[in-house]
């Protein structure tokens, strides 16, 4: 290495560009891997090679295990929302629109995105660490040697479970959110009655919004499972590798569902 080369390598600009390229490489590699595995999942899905035992197990984990935390987060968000808007709306003479506002925000945004965040922290991280542990303990290698595809046995049931069960989780949590929002509004502001709130909720619910919510949540579920499984699958190097893979899965899932949310908003509400 010449003196000039070693000097250039010591400069901050070189280091910054090197780091940027490193992150870009890492991003493209992860994105490529996720896309490839998505194609593999579709291949096994359309050739109907579904392991129903695994699908049932993963669906149960996805929906049942995540429900308490999802309900808590969405309900608390609805309570906070109702506490802040109910007194103000009454002051402005809009008490008949409190239910409408809560229902709209729940169905269009809060219910889905908050459930998504809860599912990432609860299920996504567990899926990533599970697959990462399987990777570093050579269980995935063993599966390959036994000529069983990890994409068919591990990925497909998880992605399908996410796609099927996420809408159920979101419907339940959004419903509970709207109801707790109503109870909170009654306590937070005078003159708001249950009947008035529920009537207002009905005015704010549209079939189109509900359909979009269901489709969006299904996409979120599949996306969380795919990213989490993929990041776990790429783990290497023992306990530290499992930790890195889990963190990566959580970060990528968070960013991905926000981007998908943006795409849905632009496609359906602009």
């Amino acid at each position, binding site marked *: 290495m010449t003196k000039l080369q070693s000097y250039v390598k010591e400069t901050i600009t070189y280091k910054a560009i090197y780091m940027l390229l490193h992150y870009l490489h890492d991003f493209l590699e992860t994105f490529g891997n996720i896309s490839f595995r998505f194609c593999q999942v579709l291949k096994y899905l359309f050739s109907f090679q579904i*392991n129903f035992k695994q699908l049932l197990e993963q669906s149960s984990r996805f929906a049942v295990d995540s429900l308490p935390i999802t309900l808590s987060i969405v309900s608390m968000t609805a309570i906070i929302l109702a506490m802040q808007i109910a007194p103000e709306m009454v002051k402005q003479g809009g008490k008949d629109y409190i239910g409408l506002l809560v229902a709209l925000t729940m169905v269009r945004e809060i219910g889905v995105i908050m459930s998504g965040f809860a599912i990432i922290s609860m299920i996504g991280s567990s899926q990533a660490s599970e697959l990462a542990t399987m990777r570093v*303990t*050579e*269980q995935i290698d*063993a*599966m390959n*040697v*036994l000529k*069983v595809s990890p994409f068919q046995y591990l990925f497909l049931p998880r992605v399908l479970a996410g796609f099927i069960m996420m809408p159920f989780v979101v419907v339940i949590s959004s419903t509970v959110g709207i109801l707790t929002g109503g109870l909170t509004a009654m306590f937070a502001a005078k003159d708001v009655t249950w009947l008035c709130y529920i009537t207002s909720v009905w005015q704010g619910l549209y079939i189109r919004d509900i359909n979009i919510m269901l489709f969006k949540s299904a996409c979120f579920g599949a996306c969380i499972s795919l990213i989490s499984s993929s990041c776990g699958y790429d783990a290497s190097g023992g306990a530290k590798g499992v930790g890195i893979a889990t963190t990566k899965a959580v970060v990528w899932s968070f960013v991905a569902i926000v981007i998908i949310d943006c795409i849905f908003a632009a496609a359906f509400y602009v």
Partner: protein
Amino acid sequence: MAIKVQNLTKVFDNKKVLDNISFTVEEGEILSIVGFSGSGKSTILKILCGLLSPDSGIIDIGNGDVAMVFQYSALFDSLNVLDNISFALNERKEFKGKYTKAEIKEIVARSLKTVGLEGIEDKFPHELSGGMQKRVSLARAIVTKPQFILYDEPTAGLDPVASTVIEDYILRLRTETKATSIVVTHQMSTITRCSDKVIMLYDGHIVFRGTPADLLKQDNPYTQQFVSASTEGPMKITASSF
């Protein structure tokens, strides 16, 4: 069915882990591969069973089924022993629907009996000792009646008695399944008791090939250093050797 490897080369991070390696294993033979840690022994096994692809070289193992016994057993920890052993029978495309549940239970019981374990079908891997896990791993490997069995340090982490038991089962499996086997090991007892042929790797090359008796003759500086477990000799001890 025999294994033929010709001019096998594998590079990791610009370092030639395997450099033009060639060897053959005749049908029913057991070949031991020895060498320092990081000398590419496990890489050979991973290439042979399809987990890694070589950068160059020819590997001829015909259409035979390859099974592998992993260093740390690699049992599926969410499945019990029955499901672990029957995993390929339940999930592999060519076996799906071939056997009834009762037949699978019988095959698993037979495999467990071969490795001296009976009545542990309902136990999970974490409930078993290291030696038992290794034996379950052996049972899982032979359940599909493979033509080739690859052992990656089968006695690693076991006490001498448990190691002897595993060695006995390697010999027994050779007799019963007639499989061609490759054993990666550091243990002298495994080399002398189980193998028909031995090759020794160092720095990506084969530095010795012969029988276990030849290895003990100590007329090769590399084997001399290996057998006497000496730090002095032609093989340089580096950080990756540990």
